[in-house]
């Protein structure tokens, strides 16, 4: 299901969840003439929620508004029933891993975790080692972060966020710079944190990773809520948007001209030797395509949707 309405009904709208820990009510944020968020309304609950959108969509602004780093010009942000901007006690429950590459100069990951633990008066100091271990930084925990790669800095920031034992964890591009093994480890960690009942909000440009870790997706385009729900559900709901299917077979041109006569097919085109079929009725095409190929005696080597990913969803929402 998707939400394209600016004033959704919380009870039915997939932009909202029951037992929300983070509530965004008609939030607008602007910087001078530039509107970063416009009447955004949604909520976040336990589990991992992916925050998606093209560059400049307002993801970082929303994340900073949720943590109280940015005031909102209109509307309301509540974290566990508390306004994080006006009530600093809210910062006990919410942690942010900012996208900024900067880390405090001269500090080690352990030093940063210890500093955060001191600020939050964390009684159980063993959580520092646990957090460093969780992001696999124990071997370099006492090395200065100045010489760290981007990925190691991100992991240091994740460790510092975990030290707060937060109810709400906001992660702005946390996988930036991480190597493939670390990416998998971090994704697994975020999923585990979500399964523990924490609210994990994660933004990323590597969309297949968001697909693999977030059961729910909020899509923001130009500061507005463009869609919400599971990414397959969002895609299915967009039935007016043509889908593209790549067909690889021995005689693509003969199959293409035959398919073009079908009502389920919006158009055909060729990419080299391959056939690309455009349709708004994917289920009908799924039946008609093999049938037509069989009738023509053409063997299908590969049939693959070209746009069943969040990347394509972005493109279509932005268009």
């Amino acid at each position: 299901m998707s939400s394209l309405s600016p004033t959704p009904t919380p009870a039915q709208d997939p932009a909202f969840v029951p037992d929300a820990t983070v509530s965004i009510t008609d939030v607008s944020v602007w910087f001078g003439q530039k509107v970063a968020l416009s009447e955004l309304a949604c909520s976040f609950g336990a589990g991992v929620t992916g925050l998606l959108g093209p560059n400049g969509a307002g993801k970082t602004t929303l994340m900073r508004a949720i943590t109280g780093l940015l005031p909102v010009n209109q509307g309301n942000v509540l974290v566990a029933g508390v306004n994080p901007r006006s009530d600093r006690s809210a910062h006990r429950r919410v942690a942010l891993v900012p996208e900024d590459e900067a880390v405090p100069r001269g500090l080690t990951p352990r030093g940063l975790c210890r500093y955060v633990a001191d600020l939050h008066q964390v009684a159980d100091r063993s959580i520092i080692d646990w957090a460093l271990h969780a992001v696999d930084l124990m071997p370099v925990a006492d090395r200065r972060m100045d010489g760290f790669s981007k990925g190691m800095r991100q992991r240091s920031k994740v460790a510092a966020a975990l030290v707060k034992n937060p109810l709400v964890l906001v992660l702005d591009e946390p996988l930036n710079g991480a190597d493939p093994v670390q990416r998998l480890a971090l994704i697994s960690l975020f999923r585990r944190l979500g399964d523990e009942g924490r609210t994990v909000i994660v933004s990323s440009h590597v969309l297949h990773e968001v697909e693999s870790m977030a059961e729910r997706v909020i899509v923001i385009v130009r500061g507005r809520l463009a869609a919400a729900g599971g990414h397959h559900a969002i895609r299915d709901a967009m039935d007016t948007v043509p889908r593209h299917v790549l067909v690889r077979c021995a005689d693509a041109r003969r199959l293409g001209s035959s398919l073009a006569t079908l009502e389920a097919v919006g158009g055909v085109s060729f990419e080299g030797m391959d056939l690309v079929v455009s349709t708004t009725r994917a289920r009908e095409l799924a039946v008609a395509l093999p049938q037509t190929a069989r009738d023509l005696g053409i063997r299908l080597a590969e049939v693959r949707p070209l746009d069943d990913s969040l990347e394509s969803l972005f493109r279509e929402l932005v268009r």
Partner: protein
Amino acid sequence: MTTVVAPRRRPPIVAVVVYTLGIMLHGKRWVGLALPCATAVLFGLLARALESSPSEDFAQVASTALFGLVLPVACLVIGDSALGSEIRSGSFAFTWLSPVPAWQIALGRWLGGAIIGGGMLAVAFALSAVVAGAAESADEAAVAAAFGTMAYIAVFLAIGCLVRRAAAWSLAYVFLVERLLGAALAGIAQISPGWEARAVFVELANGPTELFRDDIPQGSAAIVRLVAITVVALGLASWRLSHLRLSGSTD
């Protein structure tokens, strides 16, 4: 048997002070702090080249070069590294996103800067007096440097909270507001750490009469004025910190 001692939990304000000391004494920042101190000592050597009595010569050099140039520039470096540069880079979010009240953050940052700046500049100014052959003015130079540093750092912290390009605005404050307007207008000089620190030194060191300014407080009255400037600037910084818009380094 080995006993593992868990690290002690520090009060938040102590954590902020220790953290501030750590980020300021790191890497090239040392050079930024050591350079003005070395310059202060060099100015002491330069005072020897003058031809009056050593204490008068040092007073002339101190009031012009030490309190007019070295003190504000050193404090600008310290004040910016204590807060402004962190806000610009985005790493201030680690401190801000905590339940620690804004006034404690401001006070902790100021204390960290004042401990380092006040200590280093007081020693450097005293050393400068000794090098100039005016050892009897060393204590007065140190006291004036310490109080001047405290006020300057508080002012630069407040500027760091108020504007994004804190270093540029701080320079403008020193050279346009203090040096230019402060030289002509007593009202500006009375709220200027540079002029007041100089007034502390000149009165306590019994400097030459031409260095006295009748229109601003002198000696211990100037110390009170510097403390007042510090308190007001810290109050402003605290208020501003609680209203910061931290949009990140990319914005």
